[in-house]
Structure formats: structure tokens, C-alpha cells
């Protein structure tokens, strides 16, 4: 009896710690399960498949060969095209998104909420329908291509079916993913810093370069990565606006999985794509952080 009492008195914290541990498990459990079931397992399957061979009637047959990787290397065109297109798209989003985010965050005043809402509203419509609508906007009849062609006097001037159309579609489709992170960082910016910069005689460009840009950098990096990743795998926009003439990674994966029914080959390409994205983003972050080290601030 006494011993038990002593025991209770001596270790009062133990039940609490246990409860904490249980609570942590309960809270983290679903997220961990989510990651394992929806990320780790599928990824493991893709990696395993990438070493297999195509079954006689399509699909996957277990094996351990490197042919699929060799093939992916022998036909690198879609990788290169995707890297180029996603980079151009990310830069395009930045060029359009930064001024827009800056305007909404600093100059829009009472209309701020309205403008943010207007940015979100298109998301309520199907991505496919929004992309199809660009067929009309850019079209050769009464669309942009027709108007521009009329101005330069070239009847056959066209935008649809060119990489430019794909780029426009990409920038349009992913712009909000760039604007929101930028907006959040710029909105929190201390405006007095800009006043101070101006008071100290800095010109507009110097103020932007030395004050606004460094403050916006975390949002800029997040936004760039957010738009770059999905653009690397984009399939619908090059198919519809690019008329299937811009052959990107997403399209190559469709060819592998659905046309050739060669899952191992498609899996190897998917693994390649993941590695390339890792490398690109790691390189990008290294580059950005190197620039920031002088100011002793790290991004991500």
C-alpha cells in the first residue's frame, strides 16, 4: 500500500507523458499513413516497375533490367523540351505574377479582397474548359492570331499549335500558384523600409532590388517551385493548345503507358523525371541560398 502511494508520488509525470505519446501518435498517425499509402508505396511500385519488362500483351512483367533507363536516355527530347518549357513557364509566371502580386499587396487598398477573389474564381471552372476557351481567344479566325495576322498582313499567322500557345496556356493555368505566395510575403512587408530607402536617396530600381526583392524572395522561391513542378508533367495544355506538336514529358508518359502499354518504360521515365526535378530544384535552392548567405538569411 505504502509503496504504491510512494510510487504515485514519485512519478507523477509518467501517465501524462504516456498520454502525450498517445496523442502524438493519434495526431501524426493519419498523416504518416497518408504519406506511406499515397506517396511512398506508389513511388516504390514505380521504381520496382522501372526495372521490369513489358509483358507480352502489355503491362508489367517482373524482371531486373536497365533497358528502360537506357531507352529513356536514348530519347531525351521530351525531357529537354519539358525542362525548357517549364523553365520558360516559370519565368513567364514570375514576370506576370510579381507585378500583379505587388500591386494587390501594396496598391489595391480596399479592392484587395475583390482582386484576390477574382484570381480564385477561374478555379471554379474545369481546367479543361478554361484551356479549351483559349482555342477561341488565340484562334486564327476572330482570335488573337487573326487580329495580329491582319495587322502584319499574314493570313497564315498562327499562335495555336506553336510553343508560344503552350507557354501562354501554362502561364495562365498556373499563375495563381505564383501570385499567392508572392502576395503573402509582400503583404507582410514593412512599408517603412521602402520609405527609409527612399529617404536615404535610393532610386526606385535600387529600392526594388535591395529591399522589395529580398523580402519577396521566400515567396518567389515557393511560387517558382509550385509552378515548375506541375509544368514539368503537363499533358493537357500541349495536347490542346499545342495541337500535340509540342512533345513534353507528360505526353511521352501517355505514349508509354497507354499507346505502347509499356509500364516499365513509362516507370523508368517517371523515375527520371523525379530525379531531374529533384536535381533542378536542389540546384535552384542552392543558387538562391548562396545569394542570400551574404545577408545571413536562408530560404526554405
Amino acid at each position, binding site marked *: 500500500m505504502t509503496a504504491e502511494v510512494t510510487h504515485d508520488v514519485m512519478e507523477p509525470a509518467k501517465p501524462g507523458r504516456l498520454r502525450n505519446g498517445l496523442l502524438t501518435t493519434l495526431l501524426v498517425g493519419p498523416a504518416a499513413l497518408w504519406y506511406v499509402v499515397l506517396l511512398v508505396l*506508389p513511388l516504390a*511500385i514505380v521504381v520496382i*516497375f522501372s526495372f521490369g519488362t*513489358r509483358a*507480352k*500483351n*502489355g*503491362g*508489367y512483367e517482373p524482371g531486373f533490367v536497365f533497358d528502360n533507363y537506357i*531507352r529513356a536516355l536514348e*530519347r531525351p*527530347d*521530351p525531357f529537354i*523540351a519539358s525542362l525548357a518549357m517549364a523553365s520558360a513557364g516559370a519565368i513567364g509566371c514570375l514576370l506576370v505574377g510579381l507585378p500583379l502580386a505587388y500591386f494587390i499587396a501594396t496598391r489595391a487598398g480596399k479592392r484587395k479582397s475583390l482582386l484576390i477573389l477574382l484570381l480564385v474564381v477561374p478555379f471554379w471552372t474545369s481546367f*479543361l474548359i478554361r484551356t479549351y476557351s483559349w482555342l477561341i481567344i488565340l484562334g*486564327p*479566325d476572330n482570335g488573337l492570331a487573326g487580329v495580329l495576322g491582319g495587322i502584319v498582313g499574314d493570313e*497564315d499567322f498562327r499562335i495555336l*499549335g506553336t*510553343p508560344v500557345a503552350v507557354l501562354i496556356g501554362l502561364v495562365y493555368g498556373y499563375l495563381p500558384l505564383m501570385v499567392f505566395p508572392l502576395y503573402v510575403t509582400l503583404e507582410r512587408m514593412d512599408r517603412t523600409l521602402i520609405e527609409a530607402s527612399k529617404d536615404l536617396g535610393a532610386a526606385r530600381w535600387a529600392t526594388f532590388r535591395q529591399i522589395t526583392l529580398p523580402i519577396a524572395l521566400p515567396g518567389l522561391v515557393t511560387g517558382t517551385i509550385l509552378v515548375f513542378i506541375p509544368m514539368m508533367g503537363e*499533358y*493537357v495544355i500541349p*495536347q*490542346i493548345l*499545342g*495541337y*500535340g*506538336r*509540342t*512533345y513534353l514529358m507528360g*505526353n*511521352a508518359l*501517355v*505514349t508509354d*503507358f*497507354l*499507346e*505502347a*502499354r*509499356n*509500364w516499365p518504360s513509362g516507370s523508368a521515365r517517371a523515375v527520371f523525371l523525379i530525379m531531374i526535378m529533384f536535381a533542378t530544384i536542389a540546384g535552384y535552392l542552392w543558387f538562391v541560398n548562396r545569394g542570400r548567405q551574404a545577408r545571413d538569411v536562408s530560404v526554405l
Partner: protein
Amino acid sequence: MAERDLEAMLARMAANKVNRRSFLATSGLLGTSAFLAACSGGGGSASAAPSAAASAAASTGASAAPAGDVESELFVYNWSDYISPTNIDAFKAEFGVDNFVYDIFANNEELIAKLQGGASGYDICCPTAEYVPGMVEEGFITKLDMSRIPNAATMNPAFQSLWWDPNNEYLVPKDYGTTGILWRNDLVTAVPESWQAFKDLVVGEASGKTVMVDSMGDVMVFPLKLLGYSLNSEVESELEEARQILLEVAPHVLALDSDTYGDKMANGEASLTLGWTGPLGQELADLVTAGTAGYSVPSEGTLFWMDAWVMLADAPHPNAAYEWLNFIQRPEVQAEETNFNLYATPNDAAKEFVDPAILANPAIFPPDDVVASLEGAKDLSGSAQRLDIWEEFKSAIGG
């Protein structure tokens, strides 16, 4: 009189939403689910579920009716808008099949992915014939007792005993069509009647105004047939010659598009398309009436595709399935199918009941000498060389 018939036919065509072969946009989206479904099968875990109704059928079907008794249910898995509703109603009434379920797939890959994922409960499905041998090997479908399908006896022999079913054991031909050239004769000076003429136009006056369907098996037909080879060629040197032709025309191609090529032809963006007959009755219907759009079956020969009725190995309602397979081959019923979906029936006895305007349309029913020049496609999607040519072509198109 002929003109009035044609008008009536076109009106019917326009009202019809048959899109048997323009499935790309959908397949891009559905492909994901097909992939997931198939993945789960490959991983050996959960199976892809067919519709809830079909699953229910599988369980009730376990208590099989004694041979001869027609079950009151039938589960068909097929392309969309591909069976005449009139025929379905007539069948239900005549045989007391109250529950006729018609589920749809967007392309052969989806059908096979579903079956690989373990979908069961269906009685009948309609793959394209070149996929049938693979389905036999995988054990998905069963041999048919042809004595229970006497109405198929009038099948045109040209569509029987082909490589995909040499002994006519597994499939009953459903309907067929060709891959050819859609043209606008107001936009090109000469109607291309051959693959050679097509190529000359593509690199000439139709440069930048030619569409090809985004389908490896169909596009490869053009260079191979132009060179005088089999469209199923697996000879390395022949395929390399074909590669050179494709790379030569690649910079002149406006689009690879299986979904909206009819629109591109209709609005004049494109003057030629390597494609199928579908748009003739839909987007191009007005132009066909006006005489400015049409379809050629190239003189060097081309591909014909044929869809087929097959019965699944675990069909829960085999008696109803046999009744259906026999019913659908009745001449009048078969003719109604063609009148509805505008694809040619391979059953000769049905022809006299087909709408004369449809029967006279060479795009739907090619003349006998053309039929003789047609070649059925093999499933060569596993050929590494073909895939490499196709990918190089796709990359070269963008310049």
C-alpha cells in the same frame, strides 16, 4: 431523290453522337483511372471494381440458371452509343431480359486495364479484334459455341478466319471501318486518292494544314502502304524507310489530334486529315452535303479495324449472352445497328435492310475491290522500333 436520301441520312448523322474513334481527350483523363485500376491489379492487392450493378450481378449470377433458361439480366461492356436503343428494347421485350446493363469504356486499353484489374460480372464486351488474341491468352474470354449463334452464318467471309481468330472460335464480327484521308476539295486543288498523292499534298500545298490522328497504329499505315509494304511490317529496313517518310512530312503537320480534327477541318484550319470517317456525319456534315468535304480510301490499300463481340470467361449470364449474340445478327436487327451507328455491318444478309443512302456511301461501305485491299491491324504496340519511330516523329513535328 438521291439527294433527299442523303439529306435525311445526314440529319440522322448529325443527331447522332457516335464517336467510336475520337477518344483521345477522354482517354487522357480516364487513362489515369485505368492506370490506377490496373496498378492495383499489378500490385496484387485490391481489384478494380466494375460498376456496382455489375458486381451485384456477379454474386447473384453464381447460382447459374440451368442451360437453356434465359437469365433475366445481361451485362454488356462496350464503346459509348454503339448499340441501337431500339434493338436493346426489342431484345428485352422478346427474351424477358429486364435488366440490360450497358457500361462503357473509352478505348481498348481501358477495357483491358479493367479486366487485368480483376473486373468481373460482365457477360459480353466489344474490343477491337486485334486485342482478342491477347485477351484469350490472359484467359479473359471464352470460346463460343457457334451452333448457338446460327444467324452469324451469313457473315461475309472476308471478315472471318483472320489472324486474330483463325478458327472463328472466340469472336463474332460486330462492324468495321477504315483509316483514310479526309479532304476539303475547296482548300486543295486535287482530291487525294492515294497515299502518294496525300504525301505530295502534305509537303506541298497542304503544308501546315494537315492533321493526323494521334494514334501510332494508324499513322504508321501511311508510309508503309505508300512504300508497298504490309502495314503490320516488322522488318527493320522497311520500318526505317517508313521513318524517313514520316520525318520528311513532320514539319508540315499542323496537329496530332484524334479528338477535334473534325472541327479543324470544318473551320478550314486543316484541309487534309489522316483519320477516320466519324466527322463526316458530324462536324463535316454540312460540307459533305455541299460537296466540299469527303473521305478517300487510299488506292495502295489501308487498315481496316473491326470490333468484335466476345464473351467473358466468367460470364454470369451465358444463356442471355448467347441469345443476344444471335439476336443481334438477325438481318433486320443488324441493319438497324448500322443505321444507328453508321459503321458497316460485316453480315451480308443485313445489307438489304440497311438504309440505301448509307449502303451507297463508299466511306462507310467501301466497294468490294477496296475491301479486298484492306489489311487488318496487328497489335504491334510492343514493337520498340515502332515506338521509337513514333516518338521521333512526334518530337520532330514541333520542329
